[in-house]
């Protein structure tokens, strides 16, 4: 075969450059994760060694024996679920309305959801905390939920609004045409069409609430201690890398489970079809 050597060389060059870029990306993303994972199972790791000098679950036992860690994981899960559920309840109908009706100030209202994200957050938290202090809400779960809800609404308004707008109206008309009521159209046609987008928005909302620290810290302490708050106090209190690493691994579990669940949903034909069409 007489392949054109010039073409072959550039092709190989492309592959090489591509591979290097990919490798760089993998290292950039994966190295910190690998580091955290190694630290979580390291009992001793002295600096020149490439790998931990002593492996073990000592810090896992130590951490899991702590009462604050024990109680904070379920608390975090429950709070994040409540925030996600409430946000969905409030935002999804609003998103549908934003997408399907045209009222004066519609664009302005949509934009208003970004304003809380446009300010530096800490002063906002402080001012909210002051109000909650007056209302006697500081240190209660509703206060944490309320703060996290405010900062979650953007995802659950904007993403579903765009998704609802993206649904071809003729799909709905076709369903009306074969005999579906408005409610049936919404439940059987429109919602399945936007399900992937709503799923992604819910995922974002949940993880956002689950990992949120500053807001929960300011209005939640001393009684409401979520897992990220516990982690923060452990890391800032004593410089033991393993505590942070172990808690990070624990914190990964719910979001990893969610991501796997989401992937399965996206992979299934139904949702893949919803995404591509």
């Amino acid at each position, binding site marked *: 075969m007489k392949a054109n050597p010039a073409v072959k060389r550039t092709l190989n060059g492309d592959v090489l450059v591509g591979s290097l870029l990919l490798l760089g990306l993998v290292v950039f993303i994966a190295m910190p994760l690998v580091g955290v994972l190694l630290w979580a199972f390291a009992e001793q790791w002295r600096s020149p060694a490439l790998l931990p000098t002593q492996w073990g679950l000592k810090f896992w036992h130590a951490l899991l024996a702590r009462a604050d860690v024990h109680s904070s994981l379920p608390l975090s899960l429950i709070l994040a679920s409540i925030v996600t559920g409430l946000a969905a309840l409030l935002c999804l109908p609003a998103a549908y309305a934003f997408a399907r009706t045209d009222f004066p100030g519609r664009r302005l209202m949509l934009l208003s959801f970004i304003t809380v994200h446009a300010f530096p957050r800490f002063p906002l938290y402080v001012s909210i905390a002051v109000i909650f202090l007056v209302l006697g809400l500081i240190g209660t779960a509703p206060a944490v939920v309320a703060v996290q809800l405010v900062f979650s609404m953007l995802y659950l308004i904007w993403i579903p609004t765009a998704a609802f707008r993206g649904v*071809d109206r*003729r*799909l709905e*008309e*076709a*369903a*009306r*045409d*074969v*005999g*579906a*009521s408005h409610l*049936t159209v919404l439940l*059987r*046609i429109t919602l*399945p*069409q936007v*399900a992937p987008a709503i799923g992604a928005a819910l995922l974002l909302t949940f993880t956002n609430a689950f990992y949120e620290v500053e807001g929960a810290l300011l209005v939640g302490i001393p009684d409401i201690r979520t897992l990220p708050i516990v982690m923060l106090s452990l890391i800032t209190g004593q410089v033991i890398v393993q505590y942070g690493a172990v808690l990070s691994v624990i914190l990964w579990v719910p979001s990893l489970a969610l991501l796997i669940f989401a992937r399965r949903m996206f992979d299934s*034909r*139904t*949702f893949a*079809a*919803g995404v*591509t*069409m």
Partner: protein
Amino acid sequence: MATLTLQSVTRRFGAVPAVDRMSLDVADGEFVCLLGPSGCGKSTALRLVAGFEEPDEGDILIDGASTVAIPPNRRATGMVFQSHALWSHMTVLGNIAFGLKLRKLPGAVVRRKVAEALELVGLSGFERRYPRQLSGGQQQRVALARSLVLEPKILLLDEPFSALDAHLRVRLREELRAIQRRLRQTTMFVTHDQEEALTLADRIAIMNQGSLEQIGSPGAVYEQPETLFVAGFIGAMNVMAARREGEALVAGPFRLDLTDADRNALAEAQHLDLAARPEDLDLTLSGEAGQAVVEQVVDLGPMRQIHLVCSEGTRLKAQLARQFTVATGQSVGVRVGRALIYREGCRPVEIHPGDAGAVLPFRRIAGHRHHEDRSAP
């Protein structure tokens, strides 16, 4: 089987009527095409029948009963959309069965009806596929099956084949017509493609700016266009302003003698337009009836279309059988064999000025099918 009647239906968007006092009767089992340029209101008319739009005035009757108050989900119409509008999260089976399941039919009946509908459109065995796994033509067939499976009284199609390539369009057109004939399905088909309308329809309803210009068989709307718009819209047509000059009619390069009857018919008309089809213009070798120069010869296969420029500037299209030869730049004579004269608000007057004298034909090239543009002597 059913009839459809539109009684002076008007639908306004703002102040502008999209459909303006439209009246139309579709007989049982009839195939009617709504034809018109984009924005003429033909799709709105279809959506009015389907129930997606409500008329501001007038009434729509199916089998003689008013349907205006009936929402689209309970109307006895079935609609096929331009974009097929299949539900991508459902299989072919799910799409076609959706309406049947809403009617709470037992599972066995649903499966049988879906299988029958798929067989009708030539897609047996495609139940488990998803819409994205089908070709454009197959998707549109499924959309047709989805409507037909519910046995609608009126089948409505909104430019269903316009997104498909030309060959597929022709094939699906023929299949649709065959199915429609077999089922004796009353059908209303919207298109902007006159060829599609001419091949499909029992009758064509030509719309312009929300109004119905003419309803008639494909032959009738071609042969006797009732308005100047229809004349210009259907097929090729030479249209030119005309005026009376004494006994004669002057239009472009032509000075046509009128019969007494024609003169009476055109008595007090001010503004006239003359319309003549390319095949109604006779070309002669030496022009005694209007000199013109051949600008272009377009080979259409069965015949040739000759683009002419007349000495006073009018451009004409004439038609020539392919066994005759003509060359670009050649000087020819043009005569009007048959033409229609239009006046504002009146039916056209048909004239046959060419009957008077004999036409000198072009030289026939015996046994010679090429047209290497050899000049005729």
